[in-house]
């Protein structure tokens, strides 16, 4: 298994669902304040709805956003400077959200309807 951000991180991990990226959004930890808002903006963009429509379930019930923020973007507290590469993916609503340590938030939707 390779480290870092590369094709091996392809989120089509469960083998049954085909994920297609629908949107991506850049998050700048220094500028944009909260990762939570950035994720919600990205999901709203992917669904083509206003952010106020993306309220259920609260992200609090799905992932620990503070922990993602610390793990991927809080370089100072770890005493290293930006050379950490990593990705956190999680399912949210109908989408798969992928947060990368380079600041890109990518949102995927199931590409083909499941015929079970």
């Amino acid at each position, binding site marked *: 298994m390779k480290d870092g951000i590369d094709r091996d991180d392809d989120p089509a991990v469960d083998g049954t669902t085909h994920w297609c990226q629908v949107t991506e959004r850049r998050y700048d930890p220094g500028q944009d*304040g*909260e990762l*939570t*808002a950035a994720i*919600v*903006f990205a999901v709203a963009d992917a669904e083509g709805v206003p*952010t*106020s429509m993306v*309220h*259920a379930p*609260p*992200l*609090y*019930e799905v992932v620990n*956003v*503070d922990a993602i923020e610390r793990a991927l973007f809080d370089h100072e507290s770890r005493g290293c400077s930006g050379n950490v590469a990593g990705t956190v993916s999680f399912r949210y609503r109908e989408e798969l959200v992928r947060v990368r340590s380079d600041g890109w938030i990518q949102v995927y939707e199931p590409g083909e309807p499941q015929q079970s």
Partner: protein
Amino acid sequence: MDELLGLLQSRRRRLVIYYLRNRTESEPVRVETLASAIAAMEMAEAQPWENTEESEEGLTQVEAERNAEGGLVQVEPGGEPEADRTDHVRISLVHIHLPKLDENGVVAYDFATGTVRATHPPDEFWERLRSCQRFSAGLAATEVE
């Protein structure tokens, strides 16, 4: 105590608790209204808790206020925040801060109606707050050469 400090670690959550406990209206506030008020306080860099009378029995005083059904200083919002900022605040409230505060019994957040109100926090909340206060008093009493 760790849990309490985690809860109060976020300035936005401190402002939410403070704002809700100092409202004069008794009916729940809409999340949008709350977000706008918090955004305004953040813009004004308000530290409303610094404005109250500092006293040795700070917490006792807070508890007295609690029993008196909220009679602290009314928070003055500092100007009208722009919609974008309010929207950011609203998102973080709805997705993180309100569920977390609700889970700890510090506010009651009604997800269905999109409203929130202050609660009487559980005894553990006050006990932890007292524990923090004892820690800080003990620390202040020590001297380092």
